[in-house]
């Protein structure tokens, strides 16, 4: 009960336009690391901007009843850089042991009120989206759609002038 209330409070605190990056989790051990407060992204495989206030997690087939869906997110607290062998010292001979990774330090996991399933799409990589879209999406493909609630940035005379 306590967890439920604190979770709701966290969700209420997140602005709808907060940038969220949906990341893929393929192994249970990696999800344990997320619960422990961190997530890694290889520098050499990033094709989208990683800038996000929150990371959300798409769980693949390894997660039984929670598979093929996004159910959790966590606030990004800090970002570091490390080699894989530093992050996962018990896998020193892994083929990517000397690859460099961003290490995202995360806040506690927050459960979404409604999971976002992937009914058809299975090959998911990173999806830049917003918290508002995460709340309203009915399927993971909706996360790519621009949010109708998201106004375009005003430029000509209607607000940019307040910034400089």
């Amino acid at each position: 009960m306590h967890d439920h209330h604190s979770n709701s409070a966290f969700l209420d605190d997140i602005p709808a336009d907060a940038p969220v990056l949906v990341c893929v989790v393929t192994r249970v051990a990696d999800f344990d690391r997320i619960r422990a407060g961190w997530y890694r992204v290889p520098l050499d495989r990033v094709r989208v901007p990683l800038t996000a206030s929150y990371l959300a997690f798409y769980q693949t087939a390894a997660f039984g009843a929670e598979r093929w869906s996004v159910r959790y997110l966590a606030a990004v607290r800090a970002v570091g850089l490390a080699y894989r062998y530093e992050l996962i010292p018990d896998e020193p001979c892994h083929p990517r042991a000397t690859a460099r990774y961003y290490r995202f330090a995360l806040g506690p996991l927050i459960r979404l009120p409604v999971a976002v399933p992937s009914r058809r799409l299975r090959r998911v990589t990173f999806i830049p989206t917003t918290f508002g879209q995460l709340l309203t999406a009915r399927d993971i493909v909706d996360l790519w759609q621009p949010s109708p609630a998201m106004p375009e940035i005003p430029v000509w005379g209607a607000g940019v002038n307040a910034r400089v």
Partner: protein
Amino acid sequence: MIYLGIAAKILGHARLSRAGAHQSEASAHLSVRLLWVIEALRYLDAHNIRFYRLPDNLLAPEDRAGTPADQIAAAAAMLDEVGSYARSAAIRLSMHPHPGATPGAASEETATRAMAHIASLAALLDALGAGPESVVVVHIGGEGGDCAAAVERFAVRFERMSPAARRRIAIEPDGERFGLLAALRLHRFTGIPVVFDAFHFQLSNLERIGLSEALGLALATWSPGVRPEVHFSTQRTEAHLKRAGHGTPQVVAPRAGQHSDFVNPFEFIAFLNAARGLPPFDVMIEAKAADLALLRLRDDLRRYAPEYVGWVV
């Protein structure tokens, strides 16, 4: 060759723009903000923009995140990554603290706060491994009518700053009380290089110095081998909409000294004409539409002054 640059915000990439607004929240860790800076530098690199003013709020407030030195130490790896990317992409970095960071202030407390802030930004540039051309641009500041006293206060306090901070400071005339001559006077006392601001020069040129001469005087204050920084923007002439709560936006006339959204290309071409024969420098475009204004200015130069294409990048 003149490299054009932009200040802090990115408008041409919607996601970066929104993320930047979120990460300017006081609680964001320096390393998180630096991840945004890396994405911003990638965007600049893709658009061949080689001069960038870092946001002045990269360091979180001390009461929330610890001392600047602690924050810099905690984000060392990301600082190294950002600095390395900037160098490999040949993007010159610069900083410009908020207008209140003025070492010439009459209040000792205000000046002490200003100098601490300037020192923290200088430390940030050092941690990024930025070259000597990466400066912290400040105004003289100081209340009351005695400008000479403010210049002297600045000069005295400058001597009290650390060598690391002193190496990074550059002074910019403010377009109101402290014009080009006051900045040149401070340069004579301290050796601080002067950032020429074309718009501020227009706003406050009481001595009626010619543009070319004024620009040349400022450029001459920079050490040999260090490309000077110059600022350019034009007066806003249009009315704009001001939102007041949830009510109907009000139409507001432009203020004197208000920057325009985009750059008047003909004023910029006149400025380039005045710069002919002077040493090379880089130009920070201080228009409210930021990168959109720079890209538009490049288009305008192609249309109206093709002779400058290739010389101005």
